[in-house]
């Protein structure tokens, strides 16, 4: 049963590390975009569009971690084998 405890830890820590990097990256992107809009408010439409694409690209990293965490928690491919081993 230790296997499942480690699964929980892996999912939690994976999500934490993934969102840490994603948060830093999105913060940097928004900082640059806000500075750009502050200097040239006329270009806000173009900057917003580009920033959205960039944010979606960065965010997809956290989303991948989330999908992996969900696979670990709910659709773990090794669960039947572990249950079989534990049953012995």
């Amino acid at each position, binding site marked *: 049963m230790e296997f499942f405890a480690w699964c929980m830890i892996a999912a939690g820590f994976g999500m934490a590390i993934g969102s840490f990097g994603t948060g830093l990256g999105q913060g940097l992107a928004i900082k640059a975009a806000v500075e750009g809009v502050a200097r040239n408010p006329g270009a806000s439409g173009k900057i917003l*569009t580009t920033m*959205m*694409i960039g944010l*979606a690209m960065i965010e997809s990293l956290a989303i991948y971690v*989330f*999908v992996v965490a*969900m696979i670990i928690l709910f659709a773990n491919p090794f669960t039947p084998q572990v249950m079989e081993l534990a049953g012995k």
Partner: protein
Amino acid sequence: MTHPFLFLKWLEEQLHTHVGEHVTYTWLVMLVLIAIAFLASRAIKVVPTGTQNFMEVVVGGIENLIDETMGPKGKTYFPLIATFALFILVSNLVGLVPGFYPPTANLNTNFALALTVFAMTHIIGFKEHGLSYLKHFMGPILVLAPLMFIIEIIGHLARPLSLSLRLFGNMYGHEIVLMIFFALVPFLLPVPMMLMGVLVACIQTFVFSLLAMIYIAGALEEAH
């Protein structure tokens, strides 16, 4: 799993069929869209009112976006992009209504959409450039072409994966967050989360259609 009651799933169980709730709700979204399109275009007037007015704003907005992103060549692909945008927006937003399941919270629906984008980009590329479309994959230097070819192929194959997983992760993640909040404090606490759900639904629609546009525009431009 995340919704306690889905009326179409219940209906399906009454009829003893096993289509899957994401398929039935996709049909529902399709019906809603067809009904709206029919209502808007049933009696077209020069001075629009009601549904026609609303749909003109929506379609005009998408048309503007395509014009900004893809230039004059993009007009041809307006039906494809607008269909993506409307379908994804409606199916994202439908998940916020109790008893409805967003079809985009299932990987199968998203992968179908992403594969359509993937296939369309290459079909458009070959139609536009003929066999010289392969130059897109070769890179600038001919000696490095075998190396670039493999890298480009991997890059192109990652596109449908990232497109579908992004939409799926956002919608499914939002469902799970909502469900956890409902389990913790059912009173008023999920409301700000649902507000964020509206935001996420709109942004993900925007991102998906924008990326589809960029991919198609990338296939349209000349290789260099």
